[in-house]
C-alpha cells in the first residue's frame, strides 16, 4: 500500500470518528445509590448492572440515535446524603434518575425530584407508603412489601395446600407491614384460615410462651416476617416444644446465619418467600444479562436488587424511545398510560397509576440438606 493513501485513510477515519462523537449529544441519566457506606456492596452491583444495560443500548445505536451516559451519585445509604445527591442531580440537568436502594433514603430524595419534576425510578425501596403519597414522578421497578404478603397467601392456597396458618411479626415497620398484608390476603382465601397472629420483641431470646400458645391453635404453617436472629431462635424453640408446623420466613428472615442459629438439621426444609435471585430469572433478557455480568465481574449478583436497577434504565430508555421526548412530564405520563409489559430482566414491566410495578414476581426457596437455598 502506498504511503499517501494510508495518510488519507487515517485522515478520513479521524474525520468520521470526530463526526461520530460530536454529532449526537449523549442522554444523561442519573444513578443514585449507596456507592459507599454500609450497603456499598449493593451500590457496586447496581452500578455494574446499570452499566451493562447502558453499554447494550449504546451498542445497538443508543436511544433516539443518542448514546446514554450514566451519572453516578453516592447517597451512602443515608437520607441526608440522599437529599444532597438529589439536588445535585437536578442541577446537573439529568433526564431521569434511578434512585435508590433503601426506602428511608428514597423518601426524601423522591420528594426533591417531585418538586423539580424529574422522573425517578427506585430499585430497592419496597415500603408501601412511598407510592401512597400521590407522587407524579416516582416509580419503582421493585415490588411493594404487600405483594410479598399476597404471594405468601397464594403459596399457602395453591402450593402448600394447607388450611391452618400462624403469622408472627416483630413490630418493626417492615415486618409488621408484611404480616398485615399476608393477613389481609389470607382472610380472602376460600380455604386457609388464620389461626394465630401475634408479635414478638426483637432482641429477646425466649419465645416459648408465645409458641406454646400458638401450639394450641395447631397451625400447619408458621410465617415469620421479621429478621433472621429471631427467626432462627423461633424455629429452634418451636421444634423443642413439639411444634412441627412448616416454617416459612419473609425475605429478611432466612440467610446463612439463620441456618447457623437454628442448626442445619432443624433449618432444613424451611421455606423463604423472596424476590427471585438473578440466577433464577427465567427470561431470555435475564440470561443474556447474567452471562454478560459474569463475563465482566466473574460472578452473578448475589442479591435480587441490582437487576431492578438495570430494569429501571431499560424502562427510561424505552420511554424516551417511544415518546421521542426527554421531558419528565411526558415520560411519566407514558409510563403510567402507555408502557405495557416491557420485557425486562425481572420479567414484563408495567406500572399502575400510583407508580407501583404491576403484578408481582416472588419465589419460594427451600433450604436443602447443605443449608443452601434452592427453588421450591
Amino acid at each position: 500500500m502506498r504511503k499517501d493513501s494510508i495518510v488519507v485513510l487515517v485522515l478520513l477515519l479521524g474525520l468520521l470518528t470526530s463526526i461520530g462523537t460530536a454529532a449526537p449529544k449523549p442522554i444523561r441519566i442519573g444513578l443514585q445509590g449507596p456507592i459507599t457506606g454500609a450497603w456499598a456492596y449493593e451500590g457496586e452491583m447496581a452500578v455494574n448492572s446499570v452499566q451493562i444495560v447502558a453499554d447494550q443500548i449504546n451498542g445497538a445505536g443508543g436511544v433516539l440515535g443518542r448514546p446514554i451516559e450514566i451519572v453516578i451519585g453516592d447517597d451512602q445509604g443515608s437520607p441526608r446524603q440522599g437529599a444532597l445527591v438529589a439536588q445535585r442531580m437536578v442541577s446537573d440537568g439529568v433526564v431521569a434518575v434511578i434512585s435508590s436502594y433503601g426506602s428511608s433514603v428514597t423518601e426524601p430524595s423522591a420528594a426533591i425530584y417531585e418538586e423539580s419534576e424529574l422522573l425517578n425510578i427506585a430499585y430497592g425501596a419496597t415500603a408501601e407508603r412511598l407510592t401512597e403519597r400521590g407522587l407524579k414522578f416516582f416509580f419503582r421497578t421493585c415490588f411493594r412489601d404487600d405483594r410479598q404478603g399476597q404471594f405468601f397467601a397464594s403459596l399457602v392456597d395453591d402450593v402448600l395446600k394447607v388450611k391452618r396458618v400462624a403469622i408472627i411479626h416483630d413490630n418493626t415497620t417492615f415486618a409488621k407491614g408484611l404480616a398485615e398484608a399476608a393477613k389481609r390476603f389470607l382472610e380472602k382465601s376460600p380455604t386457609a384460615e388464620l389461626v394465630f397472629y401475634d408479635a414478638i420483641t426483637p432482641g429477646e431470646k425466649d419465645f416459648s410462651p408465645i409458641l406454646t400458645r400458638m401450639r394450641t391453635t395447631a397451625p400447619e404453617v408458621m410465617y415469620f416476617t421479621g429478621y433472621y436472629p429471631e427467626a432462627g431462635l423461633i424455629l429452634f424453640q418451636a421444634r423443642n416444644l413439639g411444634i412441627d408446623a412448616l416454617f416459612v420466613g419473609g425475605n429478611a428472615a432466612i440467610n446463612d446465619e439463620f441456618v447457623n442459629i437454628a442448626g442445619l438439621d432443624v433449618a432444613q426444609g424451611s421455606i423463604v418467600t423472596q424476590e427471585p435471585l438473578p440466577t433464577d430469572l427465567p427470561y431470555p433478557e435475564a440470561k443474556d444479562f447474567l452471562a454478560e455480568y459474569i463475563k465482566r465481574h466473574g460472578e452473578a449478583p448475589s442479591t435480587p436488587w441490582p437487576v431492578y436497577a438495570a430494569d429501571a434504565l431499560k424502562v427510561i430508555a424505552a420511554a424516551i424511545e417511544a415518546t421521542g421526548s426527554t421531558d419528565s412530564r411526558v415520560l411519566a405520563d407514558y409510563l403510567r398510560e402507555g408502557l405495557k409489559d416491557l420485557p425486562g430482566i425481572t420479567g414484563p414491566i408495567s406500572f399502575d397509576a400510583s407508580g407501583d410495578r404491576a403484578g408481582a414476581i416472588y419465589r419460594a426457596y427451600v433450604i436443602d440438606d447443605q443449608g443452601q437455598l434452592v427453588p421450591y
Partner: protein
Amino acid sequence: MLELFLEQLVNGLTVGSVYSLVALGYTMVYGVMRLINFAHGELFMLGSYLGFTLLVSTSIGELGVGWGLIIIVLMVAGAMALLGILIERVAYAPLRKSGRLAPVVSALGVSIFLQNAAMLIWGSRYRAYPVWAALDRRWEIGGVHITLMQAIILGVSINLMLLLYCMIQRTTLGAAIRATAIDQETARLMGIDVNAIIRFIFIIGPALGAVAGVMVGLYYRQLHFTMGWTYSLKAFTAAIMGGIGNIPGAMVGGMFLGILEMLGAGYISAAWKDVFVFVILIALLILRPTGLLGERVAEKV
C-alpha cells in the same frame, strides 16, 4: 388447660431463674455499696462468649454433657470472678469515697468498654453455640414438654440460689455481709474487713452471672455482644421488683418477672407483653415502694 398452664409455668420459671441469677449480682452490689453496677450485664455476656470459645476451640466439650459442662462452667465462673475483682479494683475502689454519682458513671464506662471489647474480639455478627445434641433431649411428662437444658437451667439456678441463701443466713461470712450491707462504718468498728467483703461480693456476683451466661448460650445458642444489655435490663427490673439490695428478693423478683412475662405472652398477647409487665411493676411499686420482699433501705442521714 392445666397441662398447658404447667408447661407455660416451666417456660416462665426457666427464663425467670436466669433473670434471678443475673439480678443477684445487681442486688448484692447495691446492698453492700449502694451502687448500681451497670457493668454486670456485660460480665454475663462475656461469660457466655467465653463458654462458647472454650466449647468451640478446646476439647473439653468432648468429655460429655456431665463433666464437660461442669468444667466449662467452673472455668468461666472463675475467669469472670477474676475480672469482677479487677473491675472493682480499677473502676470502683478509687471512687469509694467520692459520692454516689461517680461510681455509676464509672460503671457505665466499664460497660461500654467491655461491650466494645467483646465486639472487637468476637466480631459484630451473631455467633452460635455448636449443636450439642444431648442437650436437646426432651420429654413429655403428662402433656408437659420439657427439655434437658430447661431442667438443667432450673436445677442449677435453684440450687445455686439456695446455697447462696444458706451462706448469707447461716455462716459468719454471711453475717458479716449482712452487717456491711446495713452499715459499713459500724461493721468496720465491729472488726469486719469491709474491703474484703466488697471483694467477695465482686467474686460471687460475676461468677453467678457467668454461670447464667453459659446456660443461656447453651439453651438459646445465639450470642451477640449487645445481649448483656437486654438481660441486665430485665434483671435490674427483677431486682427492683423483689426489693433492691435484698438477696431473696432478687430470687423471687426474677421468678416473678419470668412468670409475668409468660402470662403476658402466653395468655394475653406477646406484642403487649412488656406493657403488661411494666404496668404490674408500676402498680407494685406504688403499693409497695420497697418491692416484694422490701427491705428497710437504711437511710443515710
